[in-house]
Each structure stands twice: as structure tokens, then as C-alpha cells.
């Protein structure tokens, strides 16, 4: 029987190899030392925050925390491609993106310390707070984009989730409507290879996660998620398309979860140390540092100064966080509704102001 093939291919882009050597020509922004230093600094700051958050949790001073160790290039790469017109709809592992967007270290500590005031961002007030129920944030991004189209507002929605999230219906339902309605949404998958204890291969027989976009009629591409230059470049391209009314796109960022799923997890129960060690060779900070050293004269002193600066900032934020008193008990009702109905108002009395 004569047949026709619908055929598709999934491209995977990268600019720096694992040791920081350029693979072909770098994009223009990546030839600018200041830009590269800013990206590198943001990744170092994210990692410094991450270690501190884990230390605080281990000493009973923070709640359960989801580390972004090894995936800093995704958050920083994504956020650095966005503008204030865009809206970020994050999962719970994109601290680097939130910091770049202007969420403060104090706010992140407050949130992970169990205080909702950490979600009342002073900057980037249009951004969503982290989403805990996996994949349920995808439809929000479609809604944000719908509001933008409807009101003629510029910008796009950028939604991030992990590889496990692509197994959920919400992911497909949201991507499907973005395709059908041509909405400005960039879907970003942080494929860190593990959904708690289930490896990427256990989630799907699909060869790539990016190809899931094909079913929804939007383009899907892979990128080396440990290469911040490549991540920024591809998200910029996706955002340019979206802002120009050309619709949504799915970007699968290939990375690896070097830490546990959260501080409540022990990854040694389900994966080999050798696998983790091998991935330490591919992590995102070393390669950009190598590149900065080789191409832009980044010195040991520069590095030391950066580490000291990040540590100082994180320590100062920690002090502020630890000195912040919890809200009074009635805060649990204060913003439940715009105006408290009678039965909620009665609860104010019950808990008092303590």
C-alpha cells in the first residue's frame, strides 16, 4: 500500500562541551564577558543558596527543601532570556530562575521555611509561586497566555516542570490548547533523569520528551541543559516566536539531578554512586568557569571574590530569615478571601492574635 510519512526529527543544541570548549560559533551574547560573568555568578549564587538551604534543613531551621544541584543552568538560562513582560510559572526546583527574576534570597528562605509571605514577592509580582502538585501549573501558563492575548498585553508565559511531569495529563492538555489556540507559552522540561526514584526510561518509552510537542502541533527541541548559553539561546528563540504570535514551543533541557529529590529523600536507595559521579563531570558550573578562564581571563581571585560575595549575601539573607518572626495565627485566614465571610471571621476570634 502506498503510504506517506509524517516524519519528524528532534534537534538537540549545545554551545559548550563538558569541559567548556565551544562547539562551533557562540551566539553573540555569549561572546560578551559581562554577560557570561552574570550568568556564571547567578549559577554560583544559586548553588550557594542551595547548600545553605540544605544545611538549614538538616539543622531543623528550614522545611523540606528541593535542591537544584546540577540544574542551575536551566533556571538561570531560562530566566535570563525572559523580560518583565513575561510571566514565570515555576515548578519547585527553579530557584536560580526565581532569583534572576528578582525573588529575593530572604523570600526563598521564608517560603521553604514554611511561611507564605515568601510567595508575596516584592519584585516580579506577576510570577506564580512554585507549584507543588506536579504538572498542575501547565494549565496556568495557558491561562496566563490567554489573558495576554485577550488583553493585548505583550510577553509570554514560561512554565517549567520536571521530566516526571510529562507523564501527566495536565502537561498534554495544556500543550494541546496552546497548539490549538496558538497561545504564547514556552514549556520547559528540566529533564534531570529522575522523578524521585523512577528513572526517565520508567516514565515513557518515548525516545525524547521534546517529541511530545509534535502530538500537539507545536515544535519541540532538546538542549544541553547543563550549558547555560544553549539554554538562554533556545529559550530566547522560543520567546521571540511566542511574542511574534507564532505560538508555543516545548524545550527539553537535558540535565541530571546530582542531589536527592528533596531533603526528605535518600537517592542511594535507588541509584548507583557511579552514575552520580559520572554526571559530576558534566555539571554546568565547571564548564562555564573553564570557558571564562580560557577565553576571558577569569582568575582565581575573581573566583574567590565571587564565592565570598555569594556566601556573604546568602548568610545575610539567612540572618534576616531566621530573625523574622512567624505571622500571627490569624494570618491563616486573613487572605483566604478578599473579604472574610462570617464563618471565617468567627475563626479570627477563635485563634486570637497570638
Amino acid at each position, binding site marked *: 500500500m502506498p503510504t506517506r510519512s509524517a516524519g519528524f526529527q528532534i534537534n538537540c543544541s549545545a554551545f559548550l562541551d563538558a569541559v567548556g570548549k565551544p562547539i562551533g560559533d557562540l551566539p553573540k551574547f555569549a561572546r560578551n564577558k559581562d554577560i557570561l560573568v552574570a550568568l556564571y555568578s547567578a549559577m554560583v549564587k544559586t548553588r550557594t543558596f542551595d547548600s545553605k538551604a540544605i544545611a538549614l534543613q538538616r539543622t531543623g531551621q528550614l522545611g523540606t527543601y528541593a535542591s537544584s544541584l546540577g540544574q542551575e543552568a536551566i533556571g538561570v538560562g531560562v530566566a535570563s532570556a525572559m523580560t518583565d513582560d513575561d510571566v514565570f510559572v515555576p515548578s519547585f526546583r527553579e530557584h536560580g530562575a526565581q532569583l534572576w527574576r528578582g525573588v529575593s534570597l530572604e523570600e526563598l528562605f521564608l517560603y521553604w521555611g514554611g511561611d507564605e509571605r515568601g*510567595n508575596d514577592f516584592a519584585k516580579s509580582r506577576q510570577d506564580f509561586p512554585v507549584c507543588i502538585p506536579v504538572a498542575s501549573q501547565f*494549565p*496556568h501558563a495557558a491561562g496566563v497566555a490567554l*489573558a495576554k492575548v485577550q488583553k493585548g498585553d505583550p510577553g509570554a508565559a514560561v512554565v517549567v516542570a520536571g521530566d516526571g511531569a510529562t507523564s501527566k495529563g495536565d502537561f498534554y*492538555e495544556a500543550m494541546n490548547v496552546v497548539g490549538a489556540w496558538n497561545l504564547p507559552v514556552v514549556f520547559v522540561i528540566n529533564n534531570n533523569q529522575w522523578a524521585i526514584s523512577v528513572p526517565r526510561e520508567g516514565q515513557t518509552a518515548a525516545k525524547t520528551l521534546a517529541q511530545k510537542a509534535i502530538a500537539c502541533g507545536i515544535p519541540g527541541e532538546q538542549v544541553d541543559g547543563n550549558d547555560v548559553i544553549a539554554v538562554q539561546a533556545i529559550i530566547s528563540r522560543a520567546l521571540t516566536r511566542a511574542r511574534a504570535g507564532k505560538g508555543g514551543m516545548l524545550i527539553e533541557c537535558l540535565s541530571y539531578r546530582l542531589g536527592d529529590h528533596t531533603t526528605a529523600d535518600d537517592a542511594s536507595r535507588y541509584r548507583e554512586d557511579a552514575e552520580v559521579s559520572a554526571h559530576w563531570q558534566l555539571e554546568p558550573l565547571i564548564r562555564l568557569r573553564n570557558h571564562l578562564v580560557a577565553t576571558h581571563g577569569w582568575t582565581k581571585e575573581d573566583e574567590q571574590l565571587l564565592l565570598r560575595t555569594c556566601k556573604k549575601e546568602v548568610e545575610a539573607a539567612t540572618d534576616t530569615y531566621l530573625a523574622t518572626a512567624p505571622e500571627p495565627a490569624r494570618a491563616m485566614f486573613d487572605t483566604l478571601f478578599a*473579604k472574610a465571610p462570617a464563618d471565617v471571621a468567627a475563626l479570627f476570634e477563635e485563634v486570637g492574635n497570638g
Partner: protein
Amino acid sequence: MAELTMIEAIRTALSRAMEEDPDVIIFGEDVGIDGGVFRATDGLFQHFGSSRVRDTPLSEALIAGMAVGAAAHGLRPVAEIQFSGFIYPTLDQLANHASRLRNRTRGRLTCPMVLRAPYGGGIKAPEHHSESIEAMLAHIPGLRVVIPSTPARAYGLLLAAIRDPDPVVFLEPKRLYRSTSEAVEDTGEALPLDKAFVLQEGTDLTIVAWGAMIKGATEATLQLAESGISVDLIDLATLKPIDRATIRASVEKTGRCVIVHEAPLTAGLGAEISADLAEHCLTSLLAPIKRVAGYDTVMPYLRLEAHYMPDTAHIIDAARNVMEFS
């Protein structure tokens, strides 16, 4: 003044809300050119255009989640779920996001959305089309749940729901969509949410009901009056938050209470109202509180449906039972 059925009153309210606020948009399955399977949005697509009245893919979780995102960013979405039996995929979005967004951002992002769905039994619909699911929705903190019982209240309450700054689930008893009509003036005047309606004042017995049960309760009230029993009849209308003050005041006056709902008995809202009265009005009670409710069973398919639905006779039996106690 126009005589409108409930479905016409709902359409009139939707149209009014869209006229007065360009941020109000409608989306759902078949709500566009088809006007919705019950015709609640009939003509709105033609009048307001395809960008404000949108047919979504067949995708209930998306419909609710997209409403959350759109509401947080300046729209006032009125999303339709085609039947309440298909509302379950939206529970994740309602419980985890719509009802919590204001609270978890301490007021930074809010969720002024309405999720409408035809609700309840009595029209010989297919399986999964006739369930009464208000109690599980009412159990979600931060959500309002509203069920109108007449065309005029459907009009006024839907306008209030759309204008409300917080999420509202608006359940429409489809048995009442076309069963009666009444004069409804399109004044744009909303009715209060969180407030029960006292439909008739009486002295001997309080009947609390909502939605399609108001019809049987009204009929029962008339018949009981003939045998000298004077009923305080309350249409709860907003099921969450419950207007406890109105119910308590009524029972303090009458000393007796019958609660009527179509939903199954166990863990239904009748239980909450009973408990509230037991806690706050014990010394006023002259007789046990009685619940008239659906059976604790799967909603029967159409041949047995009538056996399931609480009706006037059940309500009168319960009322007499309570009156005989003391």
C-alpha cells in the same frame, strides 16, 4: 418584565456580565457556536465573538487550570463543565490552586473565576450526568459553592459570582432549567452571596433546602400549612460559606428542623447543618433534627432515578415525624 426560565436567566446574566466588563470571558466544551449542550450560552458566541466565547478542547482539568491562570492575570473567566459528573478532573485545580492562590501568595495573586456546571438529577440523563457533588466541593476551604433554585435567584447569584473577587463554583439544577419561568428584570442587580433566603416565615418548623429540592420543600410547606403547621422555609443558596446565622435564628424560633438535599445522606451538608444546630441551638430544640436526603448509593440510572430523588411526600413525612415528637 420578561418571563424567563432558569436557563434564560443564566444566559441573561452571562450576557449582562460580558456587556459590563470586557474582562469577562466564557470558555468550555461546546459553549461557542452550539451555545452549550443546555443552551446556557446560546447566542453569546454570535454576539460577543469567538475570542470571548471560546470552545475549548475536551479537557476538563485544563478548563479549570486555564481559568486559574487567566483569573490570576486580569480576566474574569466563566468556565463551563458540561455536566457535574465530569467535574472530578477539575478538583485538583479547585482544591490545590483556585481556592488557595490568594492565601498562598498573601493576596498577591487572586482567582476571580466562576466554574459553572449543570447539576443534579431528575431529567433522565445518561449515567454520570446526575450526581449531586456539592458536599465535596463545600469541603474545600477558600471556595464558594452556590446553587440557585429559581430563575431570578440564578440571575442575581450568577452576577454576584462573576463579580466576586474569589473563586465560585456555580451548580445549576438542570431539572429546573426549563421547568418553570418567572419575571426576571435584567437590572444588573446581584443578589448577596453567603446569604440564605427566607422564602416563607413560619413558627413551627424550619425547612432548609437548596437547588431543585426547593420545589418539593415549597410544595410541602403549602400542604403542611393546610394541616396547621407553619413552616419557616430557607433556601440556603450559598452552600459554602453557610449562612449559619439565618438557620440558627430560624431554629431558635421554631425549635424544629428538617434539612433536605438531593445528595447522599452520609457526610452531606445536612450533617454539617445538623451539627451546627446541635452545637449552638440545643436548648431551643423541641425535636430531633431530621434529614431528608438521597440514599447512600450510586446515583441510579434513569429507570430507578425517581426512587432516589427526595420528593414532597418524603419531606411531609419527615415534617410530621418531627412535629409528632413534640
